């Protein structure tokens, strides 16, 4: 009897010691300041959003494109919306670019009484758009005929201006509406200079009012990074991770934050080393994160071709200061944690798995492992010159010859390596924060 009690009590002691060591794991619980941290870590190298209070500047090319405009159902649909933006109306009469009015009634009158003035200084108008840094619309036929110089048929005369606008982190949307004049099919270009990050910017207003017409093509120039969209409304996590319900998803700053209840041991054993129903190891393990894809359309000038993941261990940095963060520089990226599934990326899906060499050694957080995963653009490819059905709308026939200047301007901008998303601003498309236990 005595021997039994003695052995039972040692057994109890062992159980208590084991549970005590197992429960010595920590996790960062207070994630309220993740938003601040994220903002503090953003690379704001001049890519600030445009001031919301900016006025809209409207530049009208006094040439045949505007004279014939009133007969166009497309133009008549968008004209009220443009006037409703309360723009500053500038007329381009030859070399003279003049501010006329910002009175909506007068603007309406002026738009209906346009006369042709030769030698429109389109380049000069775009120059002043770049200089003013407001939202702007210019309606032109792109025919930059200079006195003494000629028709500028194959001259990328807007390339520099476009590049400058994009380098500031802003966007250009160019709608091309074909029309005929004196037997030639030309294009009415609506060039919208704006900032995608602005709520309810002129492009949103324009696209809401513009009728759906198949012959009108649009190209969207920007040097920023695209946004993401979700297959099922939100990011999908592997069931074994036990991601908690209370998550913070901030679409405008492109990040989300979750708490993970599972231990890394279990994630290693059941996600990385998951087996299928026959007991065979699944190659690469099961997906950890999936259901995300990039939001690009045919009109976007750039498409991300290669992505890369950058993972950071930020628990110490996050817990270190309990007041505001100041400027945050992220620590060195940790290797061997997560990888992007290349096969799925070929299908346009972002699927993240555990690195095959993951063994926990990269996670060294003392107070928990607060991990930041950045999905970044590694290399983007331009999505314009390979689309003749869109590009063709930026070349047109004229009495002086075939004019490809607008097309060449766009092409020159897009082929400039300094403009591509990974070289300007921040290449981060989306960020996921995961608060996990210590190893």
């Amino acid at each position, binding site marked *: 009897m005595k021997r*039994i009690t003695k052995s039972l009590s040692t057994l109890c002691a062992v159980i208590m010691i084991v549970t005590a060591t197992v429960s010595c794991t920590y996790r960062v619980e207070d994630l309220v300041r993740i938003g601040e941290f994220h903002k503090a870590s953003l690379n704001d190298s001049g890519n600030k959003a445009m001031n919301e209070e900016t006025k809209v500047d409207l530049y009208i090319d006094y040439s045949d494109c505007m004279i014939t405009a009133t007969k166009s159902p497309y133009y008549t649909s968008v004209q009220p919306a443009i006037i409703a933006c309360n723009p500053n109306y500038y007329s381009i009469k030859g070399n003279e670019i003049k501010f006329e009015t910002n009175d909506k009634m007068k603007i309406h009158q002026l738009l209906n009484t346009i006369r042709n003035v030769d030698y429109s200084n389109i380049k000069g108008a775009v120059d002043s758009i770049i200089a003013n840094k407001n939202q702007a619309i210019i309606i032109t036929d792109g025919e930059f005929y200079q006195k003494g110089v000629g028709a500028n048929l194959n001259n990328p005369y807007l390339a520099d201006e476009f590049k400058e606008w994009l380098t500031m982190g802003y966007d250009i949307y160019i709608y091309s509406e074909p029309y005929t004049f004196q037997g030639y099919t030309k294009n009415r270009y609506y060039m919208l200079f704006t900032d995608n990050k602005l709520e309810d910017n002129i492009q949103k207003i324009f696209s809401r009012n513009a009728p759906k017409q198949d012959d009108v093509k649009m190209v969207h120039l920007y040097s920023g990074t695209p946004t993401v969209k979700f297959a099922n409304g939100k990011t999908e996590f592997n069931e074994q991770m036990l991601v908690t319900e209370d998550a913070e998803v901030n679409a405008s700053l492109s990040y989300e934050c979750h708490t993970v209840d599972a*231990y890394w041991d*279990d994630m290693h054993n059941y996600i990385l080393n998951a087996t*299928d129903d026959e*007991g065979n190891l699944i190659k690469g393990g099961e997906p950890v994160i999936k259901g995300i894809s990039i939001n690009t359309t045919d009109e976007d000038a750039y498409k991300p071709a290669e992505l890369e993941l950058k993972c950071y261990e930020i628990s110490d940095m996050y817990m270190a200061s309990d007041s505001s963060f100041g400027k945050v520089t992220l620590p060195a990226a940790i290797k061997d944690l997560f990888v992007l599934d290349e096969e799925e990326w070929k299908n346009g899906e972002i699927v993240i798995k555990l690195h095959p060499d993951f063994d926990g050694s990269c996670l060294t957080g003392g107070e928990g492992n607060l991990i930041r995963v950045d999905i970044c653009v590694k290399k983007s490819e331009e999505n314009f010159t390979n689309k003749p059905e869109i590009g063709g709308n930026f070349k047109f026939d004229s009495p002086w010859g075939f004019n490809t200047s607008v097309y060449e301007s766009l092409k020159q901008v897009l082929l400039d390596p300094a403009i591509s998303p990974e070289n300007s601003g921040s290449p981060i498309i989306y960020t996921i924060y995961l608060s996990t236990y210590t190893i």
Partner: protein
Amino acid sequence: MVSKITTAVQLHQAEMATYMTDAIIGIAFIVLIIIIANMISWQPGAHDGSPAKRRVWFWIMAVTCLFTSLGVNYFSWLRHISKAQFVTEYIIHMIAAAVVGSLIYAGITYIICKMQKKDTKLASIFK
């Protein structure tokens, strides 16, 4: 006893519970064999076959303990697991727990019998 077992945490809890349950089943069978052994009366006369009978019951109870444990494990936990990887892992623990439970039964019964005064019914099981 439980709803579906889908996560690793639930699996670990099920495994812990399995070991504990099978240990308790083992202990329950110890009580059972003590009762049965005492119910088997001495046979008067020259040749007493009752110790042999008690020994037989000892082994019957050992096997019953094993299968009872396996049965309880199956109905309480295994049938709630659908993920193949979990099933493979649980089966190993299920069998191990049942064996351990039976060993607890056998071992402690042996110790108890050996600790009895000689010429008692229990002592006669392991002469």
